[in-house]
């Protein structure tokens, strides 16, 4: 029998946290139903930051709509514009120059690094271990500066455009050299952090066996991304994306689905990202970075799935006279909310925010999703 089945008939009291809480970086409300400080059930409510981006995109010229998708998320902004461009490119049959694909992969992996570092730092912060948190934030700073070097900004890069990447995001020799050197620095720093983190017995006692999400439950809840892989399921969309065909990397998994597995999962996955970036630096082909040789036509709804730092990102829309129609975007956190609620059950209230954070929530992205109930 599943030990984590909500015990709805013996709920003692409700403890609401949010929509503003210092342990949660984003606005959401969670109600914990507890019995003697043990969480019996959790209920997450979002919807306080809905911006209606899909509605705004409706009818916009596709280039403008692509730029708007970057505003969905401050952490994985590049992933959104990449996937949005990819959707149109698939519909219009645009061929992307090989060099542009490499730059997109580099940007994608840099973004994965900074997202995973943010996750590790936030996890340590929720554990109230500020020293570890600061240490990871310093590492993240290197990656943020690299993103600024390529994209011109630390958050919104505007790298992908229809047909490739913006010419200003092209990588010359000096940029490639800095990228290479900084990857060495990041790897060294991350190795030191992981060794220290795993050797800290007090931290390990706080994270081992906490917020367990069994593999069976993860699959039933349609969990995605590193949160799914931390339960032992080797499912990574990058293995099926044509952009990654020429790259050699491992799909990292962890066995237990608890907070420790999730944290270690992201740390190990960061090493794989560094590996991919190094391969891209070494083998980046010469040539143009954008293909302007295409024509705008009307298309049916085209769909694109990519693996972003938090899981599977879905974009779909049709094109009509160069304008976006019937746009739907689904972010990974939408699929992971069930896991967040489930992971809290049976743990102490002090660990509850940690159990939510382990699923890497990004509710501001998720809040733009709307559910249409047809009666």
């Amino acid at each position, binding site marked *: 029998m599943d030990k984590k089945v909500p015990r709805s008939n013996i709920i003692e009291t409700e*403890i609401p946290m949010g929509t503003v809480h210092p342990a949660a970086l984003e606005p959401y409300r969670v109600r914990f139903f507890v019995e003697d400080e043990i969480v019996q059930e959790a209920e997450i409510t979002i919807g306080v930051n809905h911006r209606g981006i899909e509605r705004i995109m409706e009818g916009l010229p596709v280039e403008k709509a692509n730029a708007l998708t970057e505003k969905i998320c401050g952490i994985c902004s590049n992933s959104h514009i990449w996937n949005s461009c990819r959707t149109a490119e698939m519909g219009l049959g645009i061929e992307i120059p090989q060099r542009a694909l490499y730059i997109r992969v580099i940007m994608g992996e840099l973004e994965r690094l900074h997202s995973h570092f943010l996750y590790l730092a936030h996890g340590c912060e929720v554990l109230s271990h500020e020293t570890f948190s600061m240490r990871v934030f310093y590492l993240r700073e290197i990656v943020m500066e690299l993103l600024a070097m390529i994209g011109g900004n630390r958050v919104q890069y505007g790298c992908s455009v229809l047909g490739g990447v913006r010419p200003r995001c092209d990588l010359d020799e000096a940029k490639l050299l800095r990228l290479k050197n900084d990857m060495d620095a990041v790897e060294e720093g991350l190795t030191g952090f992981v060794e220290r983190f795993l050797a800290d017995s007090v931290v390990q006692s706080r994270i081992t066996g906490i917020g367990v999400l069994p593999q069976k439950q993860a699959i039933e809840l349609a969990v995605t991304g590193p949160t799914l892989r931390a339960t032992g399921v080797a499912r990574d969309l990058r293995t099926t994306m044509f952009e990654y065909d020429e790259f050699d990397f491992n799909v990292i998994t962890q066995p237990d689905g608890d907070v420790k597995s999730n944290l270690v999962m992201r740390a190990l996955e960061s090493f794989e990202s560094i590996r991919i970036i190094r391969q891209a630096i070494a083998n980046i082909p010469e040539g143009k970075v954008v293909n302007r040789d295409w024509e705008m036509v009307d298309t049916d709804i085209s769909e694109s799935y990519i693996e972003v730092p938090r899981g599977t990102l879905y974009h779909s829309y049709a094109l009509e006279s160069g304008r976006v129609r019937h746009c739907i975007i689904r972010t990974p956190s939408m699929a992971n909310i069930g896991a967040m609620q489930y992971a809290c059950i049976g743990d102490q209230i002090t660990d509850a925010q940690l159990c939510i954070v382990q699923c890497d929530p990004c509710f501001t992205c998720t809040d733009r999703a709307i559910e249409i109930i047809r009666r």
Partner: protein
Amino acid sequence: MFENILANPIIVVILTILVCFIISTLLPGIERKYIHARIQQRIGPILIAPGIMAPLKFMFKENVEVSSPVPGLYKALPIICFIVVLCVLIALTPQAYQIPALASLVAIVGFLKVEEICYVLMGALSKSVMSVRMPFPDKIKGAVHNNSNLSFIEDISARRSLRMITYGSFPLYLALFAPIVTARSIFLQDIVAYQQVHGPFLFTVSGAIAAFVFFIGYMIILNEYPFSIIKAKSDVIEGPYMEYAAKYRAVVYLTRGFFMFVLGCVFSVLFIGVPPTIMSVGFLINILVALIFVFMMGIFSAFAPVFTNRQLLPTILCTTLLGILAIGLGLL
């Protein structure tokens, strides 16, 4: 004339309190700038910001009416805490030895217990907006339990404070009683006199163990990481202090720094035999001990996550056993 003024014990006590208070305002800044910030490789706040400038700033801010069923009592509690800490310091001064009922360990333990009870009351009386829900059932979002009892997050804090009174403060009180067993007296005058003859209690086996236990108890009663379950940011945020603003928050800040210094003085008296008075060069030892404790606490808290019950119970159990061992060795 100056000698005449200093011959008055009341004036000496007042001057001692004043100097202790001024030094205590620097302690939070020292902890945050020279320990936490240095360890975390950041600049940190300026030295006087946390202990002096922040309380001054809060003193002149407009107060927000607290959300509490008994606002008068809730607002009085930080002041009571400050007075309690002040009483502990007065009890430690040599001038107080003329009043045996005050200058005894029983009185100090009593004062510290009042401080702990204040945390329970603060938590129970604070009803912040952080836990307020809509005045109608939350059915629209598909809520399952619409009629459950609502608990304020400060209530958790109050329950945890109560738990800390029942077992969390064992280490501190055991460490306080270890010198009594050796000196065979509950009066501070006798404990100090014993150490002036036989040397500091700290340099005995029993004393060294008790000093370690005292340090753990010191961190627990100060609610410092990793023992800060009553105000853990991950769930109860500021816990009992949530509703304090303006001058009441200023008093909370001042009390914390003062309490750090006074606990250092408690250690100086019981483990080194040096009572705090500005009339003696030994006062420098009081300051040094207070600083050492702040440094140790800062280092310890910077490298540990906040404990939950899973870590707290074994830690308190082990420290309590060590405290019992220290007392046992003192009896031999």
